[in-house]
């Protein structure tokens, strides 16, 4: 149904952009709502029911789809998104849920989705790291798993420049480039009669470092215009940086919005949190669309789980992995669709139950990666997606 909503402009636009599209690699934008956004207060509202909470549901740009009234701006971009409302992770643990959502596997040292995207969607030796994660806190995760470390996330502390981006004080730019030239000469000399793979991998990391240094204005200026549109709060600024990084060609950009673990005052906190998220995300999504980037960029909005139907005595909702939702859109995703459903009270999945394994396959296939194939890593053949699950075909274009 969503497909028809946008069909009017489809052919015209795609003809105009066909040439450009060919050159564009597939990219990913992940927006991670850390702590577990409430499905009731976002994608799967149950207004007027026993456990539905105080908020209303509002119509969206896709007839028939309603979301919580805390997402008025995103509701207007609904024709660019689709929802899955029937996720059951069978865990209520932050760490387990988060890794399951990232890796498509509940256990094991598997790579994060961003690292997999970097490996299969990026160039062989990309000028910039393939996976960047903008977050204002949190520990460093082992995101590459058994894949090459070059696919691990480049952790960016908010919109600040990454550590060590500035040359040491007093070292002139000319000295920097001389030093860099010498380093390459030394590597050439050393590599003359040796096998190249390690030396090249090492060299590539320094070239990426150099690229980041020369593009450090990415981390410096954000236009007043953008700050007004996105919001000058950290999440707004992080999303401006995310757009910039995508424009600069980073394969997968992940932005984390912290603070959804609302064990107390769930409703007040969601007003605040989603108040920040909604306009910023809708603006970013709109920008990607306006700039023709959405056609080659898969957008995913997700949490490690949802929140309990039951409202506790502190007006909180607790951890709930048994029935919650994600939103996705852009490259490879049928827009304006809703897959799966919870029951009337939202206490369990009523239709088309899936878990993070299905989502992982879906994301990859939307991006054009055969998720049923194997990773070939140092002689091991490891299925990219969990062979026990498969993609949600009805979401794929």
């Amino acid at each position, binding site marked *: 149904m969503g497909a028809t909503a946008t069909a009017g402009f489809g052919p015209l636009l795609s003809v105009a952009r066909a040439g450009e599209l060919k050159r564009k690699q597939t990219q990913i934008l992940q927006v991670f709502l850390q702590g577990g956004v409430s499905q009731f207060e976002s994608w799967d509202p149950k207004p007027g029911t026993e456990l539905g909470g105080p908020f209303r549901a509002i119509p969206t740009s896709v007839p028939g789809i309603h979301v919580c009234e805390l997402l008025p701006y995103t509701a207007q971009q609904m024709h660019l998104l689709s929802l899955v409302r029937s996720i059951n992770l069978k865990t209520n643990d932050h760490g387990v849920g988060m890794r399951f959502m990232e890796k498509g596997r509940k256990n094991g040292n598997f790579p994060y989705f961003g690292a997999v995207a970097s490996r299969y969607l990026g160039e062989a030796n990309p000028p910039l790291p393939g996976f960047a994660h903008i977050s204002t806190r949190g520990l460093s995760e082992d995101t590459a798993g058994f894949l090459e470390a*070059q696919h691990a996330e480049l952790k960016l502390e908010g919109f600040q420049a*990454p550590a*060590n*981006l500035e040359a040491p004080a007093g070292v002139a730019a000319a000295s920097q480039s001389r030093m860099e030239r*010498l*380093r390459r000469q*030394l590597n050439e000399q050393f590599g003359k009669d040796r096998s190249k793979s390690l030396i090249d991998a090492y060299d590539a990391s320094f070239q*990426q470092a150099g690229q980041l240094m020369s593009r450090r204005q990415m981390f410096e200026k954000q236009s007043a215009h953008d700050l007004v549109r996105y919001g000058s709060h950290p999440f707004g600024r992080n999303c401006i940086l995310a757009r910039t990084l995508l424009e600069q060609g980073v394969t997968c950009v992940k932005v984390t919005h912290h603070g959804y673990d609302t064990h107390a005052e769930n409703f007040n906190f969601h007003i605040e949190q989603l108040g920040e998220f909604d306009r910023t995300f809708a603006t970013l999504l709109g920008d990607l669309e306006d700039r023709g980037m959405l056609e080659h960029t898969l957008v995913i909005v997700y949490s490690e789980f949802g929140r309990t139907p039951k409202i506790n005595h502190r007006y909180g909702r607790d951890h709930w992995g048994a029935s919650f939702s994600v939103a996705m859109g852009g490259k490879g995703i049928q827009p304006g669709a809703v897959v799966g459903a919870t029951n009337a009270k939202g206490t369990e999945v009523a239709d088309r139950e899936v878990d993070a394994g299905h989502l992982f396959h879906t994301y990859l296939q939307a991006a054009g990666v055969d998720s049923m194939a194997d990773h070939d890593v*140092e*002689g091991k053949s490891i299925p990219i997606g969990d062979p026990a699950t498969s993609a949600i075909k009805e979401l794929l274009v």
Partner: protein
Amino acid sequence: MRLPISNFAARPSTVWLGPRSLCSALNSRTGLLTLAISAVLLVVGARAGGPADLAREIDTLVDQHLAEMGATPAARTSDAEFLRRIRLDLTGRIPTLAEVEAFLASEEPQKRIALVEKLLTSPEHARQMQRMLDVWLMRRRPNKHVPQPQWEQYLFDAARANRPWDELTRELLRADGAESAPRPAARFLLDRELKTEETVRDIGRVFLGRDLQCAQCHDHPSFGDYLQRHYHGIAAFLNRAYLFKDPATKLTVIGEKAEGEVKFTSVFTSEQGMVAPRILDLPELFDPPVEDPQGLYVQKPDKKTRGEPTHSRRAMLASAVTDPRNDAFRMNIANRLWAAMMGRGLIEPLDMIHEDSENLHPQLLQRLADDLHQHGYDMRRTLHAITLTDAYQRRSTAAETDPLAAAVMKPLTPEQLAVAALIATGVERRYVEAAKAKLPPQPAWDPDTLQPPLEMSPTAAEQQRRWRLEAEVTKATAGEVAAFAKVFISGNETGAFDATASQALFFRNGAKLTAWLTPRQGSLCERLLAHEQDLSVAVREAYLSIYSRPPTKSEASLAVDFIQGFESDRLAGLQALVRAMLCSAEFRLNH
């Protein structure tokens, strides 16, 4: 160059056989004399069956293989290449400037052999083994129930005493954290919290070379010998064990119940199975029949006490894993030790040994495994033998023809890299001097027994001093090493090379290296600056300090030109040279 076999057999390995002239004679090409001396040595019984003999066997096997493959072995390493490699492999460090100069200047024909022996009994070797065992066993997981310093000390002591691998394995798997072994030994099980998935998986990987994770839910789809019952057979040793927080000591220990079975269902075929404890395809170990239900426990579990069953399945795990019939145990450790020295296991990945694995040299792996078994799992013996081989001492030139024809380059581990940078920049020397100043000239008392030494020979006293000095320096540099290493630690478990932009930025711009490159207190840059009038001397010292070798002529002139490019700012030029060398692949890799 290969020595004639008769000479090789007579290489002294731990016994000093005679004056230098005798050793030179051994190397002479006068065949008769050599033969005669060899015969004498054999009569004396000089280490027949010692590491040198094993080394010779390894080389024979490798050479046969290369001949069959039609592969030409790479040339022998230069002394400088050998020194850097053996230093990193056995002690986790690059050689100091003084050490490089002394080794290159030495005309002792057996100097490589002597060096290997010296290093194998050094405290730095115990440190390197400690770090290697730590990563093998714990894969850098955070500490939960055993603090890291205690765990490190436990491993260090084990490495210092060269404790046999089978004995260590049994201790690690048997320890309950309460009484049966030193508490740190229980870390392997405690810090995995006895979670079946992690514990079974890592027992398989670390001790059997088999990652059975995929066999948890079904027989492995592509490896015919990774069966669901193998996974659950190991799980059955542990399924009755549980973590117990002792209310009296507040320590978490391992308790065990007397009942409980392991059942499993294949997610593919829905076939069900039940399995008693077993290691791979060895027979199942059934519980003894219960005659008196009252006799099930030595100590019944309750809220205040951990359970101790009369028949402990968990206690059987240790002996089952190291059972001589369990070939996987010896193959795994042989393959791991070979990989540690040679940069690549004979079977890769190290934790995916299965019946169809590509094995570079099955006969060799079996020989190493059997030798370990026959010699009481003496890991030092295996390392000793491998490092004596021609196969180990080859250059790391590209060898398209066969992986055994040339040395494989190894990225330095995070700790090796940190220590190497400390040594190269001359910063470690500061810590060494400070530690020396702190140590009393003669040990006042024995640090182990806290008793004054009754009588201690000067050699023993010097030995003790060396061990204490190493411990002091390690402790003093621990913060620097950890902060540096942190940047390079990743969860990549394949041993594949890690190179990220963040690491490159750290090397290129990081404040730590910048501080280490400041000319002060005898640091490398201070010493180089002292030679600013003669840049070729400075360049030579930089090469010896960072690359552990002198520069070639063309390298020297390139570097001198480079420094001169900075015109009057000699310090900037020297620092840029040092930084570029530290950022280069030659420094990053053990080659």
